[in-house]
């Protein structure tokens, strides 16, 4: 079993050399490793482990992927490199394929919900407010009337930041200013959306670390009050994860889900060198689909998540 066999077979490479970004993709490396071989061997698995772990996939999920790959190979008998690549792609994509929730997957079809209410949550600085600005842009482009709620009343200039995004998008921002009750902002924003026939209402919340019980309780409350205006809201609870975050994303997903029943993920800052591989395990373990990715700071730098592209990106450097 090649499970973490790299641990025993250490080739002493110079660290700097090792950290050098290579231009070859994993599959090229794999192809080389496989020439003339007829089974998935330890060298291949070592390489695969390294790629996955350095993409923040995490040990447990990496082992799971390797295990699934080995089973598939044993069963289906692969005949060549390209086939193995496909198996690997498929197996990883399967872990991401848990989109069982009823949330809509494009910006124009809101499945009859009006207003469609999105609450955006996450730890500090991951890109919540920016993602809201980008989402507003997408919904507007799809012809929707959008309202934003400035529910971060805590972080310095947070309301102003969202208001600037509101101006950029020419959409209304419901706000009560700084240091006010975020739940009442959320309440008023949903109410404003209902009263004014908006199609989409997106609520910003203050960044908070998931181990702060009081702040998580506050979040649950913000969520609860919305349903008092309109039953079934918020429809989408979007947890924003930063692609550069490591294994802590698991704990984030766990705690935010416990507090607010997260049903969608956004993965930001994928325009950087970080791969965001931790979402594979998060999506798999919590059965929450990745819905959006952030690829820059600009208003257009948001895309719907495409799992095949994402998986391929893990193997490119």
């Amino acid at each position, binding site marked *: 079993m090649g499970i973490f066999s790299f641990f025993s077979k250490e080739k002493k490479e110079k660290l700097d050399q090792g950290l050098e970004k290579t231009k070859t993709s994993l599959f090229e490396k794999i192809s080389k490793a496989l020439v003339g071989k007829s089974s998935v061997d330890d060298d291949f698995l070592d390489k695969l482990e390294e790629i996955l772990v350095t993409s923040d996939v995490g*040990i447990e999920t990496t082992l799971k992927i390797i295990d699934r790959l080995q089973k598939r190979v044993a069963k289906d008998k692969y005949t060549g490199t390209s086939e193995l690549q496909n198996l690997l792609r498929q197996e990883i994509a399967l872990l991401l394929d848990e989109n069982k929730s009823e949330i809509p997957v494009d910006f124009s079809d809101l499945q009859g919900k009006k207003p469609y209410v999105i609450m955006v949550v996450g730890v500090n600085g991951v890109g919540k407010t920016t993602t809201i600005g980008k989402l507003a842009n997408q919904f507007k482009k799809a012809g929707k009337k959008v309202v934003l709620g400035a529910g971060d009343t805590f972080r310095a200039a947070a309301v102003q930041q969202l208001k600037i995004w509101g101006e950029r998008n020419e959409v209304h921002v419901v706000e009560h200013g700084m240091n006010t009750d975020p739940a009442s902002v959320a309440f008023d924003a949903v109410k404003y959306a209902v009263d004014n026939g908006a199609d989409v209402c997106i609520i910003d919340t203050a960044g908070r670390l998931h181990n702060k019980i009081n702040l998580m309780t506050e979040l649950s409350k913000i969520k609860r009050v919305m349903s008092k205006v309109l039953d079934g809201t918020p429809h989408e609870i979007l947890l924003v994860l930063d692609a550069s975050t490591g294994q802590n994303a698991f704990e984030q997903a766990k705690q935010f889900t416990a507090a607010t029943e997260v049903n969608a993920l956004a993965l930001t800052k994928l325009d950087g060198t970080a791969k965001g591989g931790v979402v594979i395990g998060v999506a798999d373990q919590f059965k929450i689909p990745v819905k959006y990715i952030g690829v820059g700071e600009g208003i257009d730098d948001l895309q719907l998540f495409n799992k095949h592209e994402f998986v391929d990106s893990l193997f490119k450097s």
Partner: protein
Amino acid sequence: MFDNLSSKLEKAFKTLKGQGKITEINVAETVKEIRKALIDADVNYKIAKQVTDTIKDNAIGANVLTTVSPGKLMVKIVNDELVALFGGKTEEISTEGNPTIILMAGLQGSGKTTHTAKLANFIKRKGKSVMMAACDVYRPAAIEQLKVLGAQIDVPVYFEEGNLNPVSIAANAVKHAKENNARVIIIDTAGRLAIDEQMMNEIGDIKKTIKPHEILFVVDAMTGQDAVNTAKAFNDVLDFTGVILTKLDGDTRGGAALSIKTVVEKPIKFVGMGEKMEALDVFHPDRMAQRILGMGDIVTLVERAQDVFDKEESDRIQKKLLKDQFTFQDFLSQIQQIKKMGNLKDLMGMIPGVGKAIKDLDVSDDAFKHIEAIIYSMTPKERETPDIINGSRRKRIASGCGRDIQEVNQLLKQFDEMRKMMKTMNKFQGAGRSMKGLPFMR
């Protein structure tokens, strides 16, 4: 994964029993587990490998203390290595120059603006006049954010509404600070990706223009494997002087800290512990090491075991053991030493076989109370020569301490077994090797 690392280490080391030293063979499994733990804590894959290789070399040949299990000793060795890697002393920020110019740099959302203000607050509290400069012209409301924080801590903020050139704002800010006799000026900059050439050139230009005395790389403690790439790229451009590790008030293990320290060899000067202006702390290498390893308890335990056990007392018991003269009096004295060490469940976990059995048990700290009571109820002679404790003596002992006779019987039986076990262990080990501590805790 962490919950059972300790038990995995125990298993990995079970072959070690009866061997006095950590050897190449018995260390391999353990090193594997530790490496996984480090990776799970977000230490970079290659660095985890590098670090554990060093640890392995250091551990081989280390004497195994009898007071703690080898697995736990290994954890301590790893911990010490991590502390050493972080560097023993805390590093102050520069006070050179007039004003001292401090430049903040880092990825988007890492906490630069917040820490610009926290640091200003920190310096202000030391009685120095300090100023901040808002050089993020990109992020919506970035200038406003720094202004709000400046008002909160009562520190002036230099900004230029409408100037879109951060290099010139920074230069003007330094000039302004000089003119106003500020002792320190801290420059906040926009977040940037290491691969964004234009933005990296921009911050390089800021550096060239204002020649900062201190350049702080601000990094989120939750960062994963990519920390090495980012730290290296920022260091290549800026040759920064220190690191601020933010959001450590979360529950991340913070392995990125080790990756960064290893790859750029720059000191971590501060840690951010919250959103409030006071939530800035100096860096403690030992705390960080324990956090990354996730086994602070074990480390303290080993330290305590190493401290507390009275060498003379142990030697005395040791001799008696060799002569097969271990008595209830000795047992009592051992219990008392154990109690000095604190949390009983942890301590009992160190006894082989016991750890697993009590894993889910709620062990109260007076678990030894009954045993002590029974022993106290024995006469000195009974304690010294347990063999004389017959049926009627048992009854007397039981009624004397108010415990069931079954309990007394059980203790006597266990004591007998323990003595037998020690005897075999002694034979196995050979009389030549000194056992420094409590054999039954092995």
